[in-house]
């Protein structure tokens, strides 16, 4: 068997991709629909920007949820970046072969590590309820605080695993050389380890940011009466009917995601090139190429 695809394979892949994008395309298309119907009437009648205008109307009230979501995502990612990066630096032990998020669930992992990566293995609804119950027990008032604390729980694993994968692929000789040349351990950390880990820290943060902005299930259980995140707001608008301005909102969110993904891909490609340039022996080249094509769990 040759390692080559038949035309039928291409057709099949195209077909699956079309199905994958069908619901998204429908949302984008209908966001420009001029059909004034507020009911579930889905006939495309012409081009219009009315739903975008309606979105800007303060009556629909998307400003506050957007602000809440961004704030929650910002603080959660900041805290998770610190916890996850330090965790990764402290726990790089085994070589990680061939994969970005790596051998996180290794049998030999310590309990601490297992608990830290557990949130991405168990259903979100369990974590949501468990956190809600814990906050009730501890008497933490539901709101911004509980949202950030909960988002950190599921953001940490993404940053931890991404950064640890990167650190494990580095040549330990780099750090040892710095040490031998008289750098203090702190200096080694700030001027060798962290700069080398930076691309992974950034891509981990991007992933965590997307997860935080996207989270519905956990936020649903731990949000307070005064706080409403964007997914929660979308859920409450979509639950009862199909208000057309949601299409416009969704299209804007989609555009943002496409932009962020494109920028991060370009940035990673750039980092890859720079890395290749620095690393004359090209040892990292293969791995970096792998990391570029490697899936990130979403």
């Amino acid at each position, binding site marked *: 068997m040759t390692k080559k695809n038949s035309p039928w394979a291409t057709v099949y892949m195209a077909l699956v991709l079309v199905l994958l994008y069908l619901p998204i395309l429908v949302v984008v298309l209908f966001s420009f629909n001029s059909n004034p119907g507020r009911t579930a009437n889905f006939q495309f009648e012409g081009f219009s920007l009315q739903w975008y205008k309606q979105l800007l109307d303060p009556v629909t009230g998307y400003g506050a949820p957007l602000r809440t979501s961004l704030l929650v995502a910002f603080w959660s990612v900041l805290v998770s970046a610190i916890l996850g990066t330090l965790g990764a630096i402290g726990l790089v032990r085994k070589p990680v072969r061939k994969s970005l998020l790596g051998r996180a669930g290794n049998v030999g992992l310590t309990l601490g590590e297992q608990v830290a990566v557990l949130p991405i293995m168990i259903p979100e*609804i369990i974590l949501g309820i468990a956190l809600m119950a814990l906050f009730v027990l501890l008497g933490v008032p539901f709101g911004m605080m509980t949202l950030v604390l909960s988002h950190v729980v599921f953001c940490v694993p993404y940053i931890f695993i991404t950064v640890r994968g990167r650190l494990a692929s580095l040549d330990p000789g780099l750090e040892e050389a710095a040490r031998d040349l008289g750098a203090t351990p702190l200096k080694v950390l700030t001027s060798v380890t962290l700069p080398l880990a930076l691309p992974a820290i950034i891509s981990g943060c991007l992933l965590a940011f997307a997860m935080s902005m996207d989270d519905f299930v956990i936020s649903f259980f731990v949000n307070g009466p005064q706080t409403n995140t964007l997914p929660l707001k979308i859920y409450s608008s979509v639950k009862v009917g*199909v208000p057309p301005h949601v299409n416009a909102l969704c299209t804007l969110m989609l555009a943002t*995601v496409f932009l962020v*993904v494109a920028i991060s891909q370009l940035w990673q490609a750039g980092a890859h090139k720079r890395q290749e340039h620095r690393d004359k022996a090209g040892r990292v080249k293969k791995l970096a190429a792998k990391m570029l094509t490697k899936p990130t769990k979403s």
Partner: protein
Amino acid sequence: MKSRGVVGKYQRSREPLALPMMLYGVLFVGLSLMYIIGLSLMTRGADFNAGAPFGAHNYARIFSTLYLRSLLQSLRLAFFTALFCLLIGYPFAYFMAKASPKARTWLMLLLIVPFWTNALIRIYGWKILFSATGPINQALLGLGLIARPLRLLYTDFAVQVGMIYAMLPFMVLPVYSAVERMDWAMVEASRDLGASPARAFLTVTVPMTLPGVLAGLVLTFIPSIGLFFLSDLLGGSNTMLWGNMVHNELLKSRDLPFAAALSVVLLALTGIVILVYRRMGGRAESMVF
């Protein structure tokens, strides 16, 4: 490539750096999970409180037609989700791994981008597609295949389609990394030794990619039991999945201990699935790509 990892002699002194992360995990994941297990053995009190008497009465309550039917419905949905994700996702992952490196990067990007977008948006798209006056019914009516619009939205069928759609990448990604890592020389050897393409595929490729398939099955099966918003938005009033049950007990009946018991059942199911997965030779690392 020799990948030794940063196992320098200074590594030991750095281990304390991981303490904050571990403490955070122990407090918010370990403790909270243990707390709901404890909670499930309590009795509800006024306003979200719980306390004595202690006992397994919440679990006894689960053994009623209502909950058992819901559990069965959820498991069936999860089973078909995993099955269809495998049937659709395996060929996709397989062809993707065989594509040229450049095409592979693009395919990966195309696969991942929709799943970076909010799940609610994608489900909302299906809501439009499935509605009585939506594109699917319009097309079928236009082609003269049906006389009246089909009832697609708010059915179990819609939930099943939405679930397969939502879970598909979790099958494609692990299978893809398994196929990509596979040694193609083995397949070629079996072909040279006279195996037909089908036989080579079944006896060489499939066993070699089995870890990815198992990981994909676990990753698509487990979340399908708990995703309550999907059946909330696409399902009818009789679609009561386990996730919906937990959700209702908590926010409508405000019965925290009983909701905790339902979650513990889900947690136990998750544990069993992961145990079976380990027994079958699945390594946890193929689950986290």
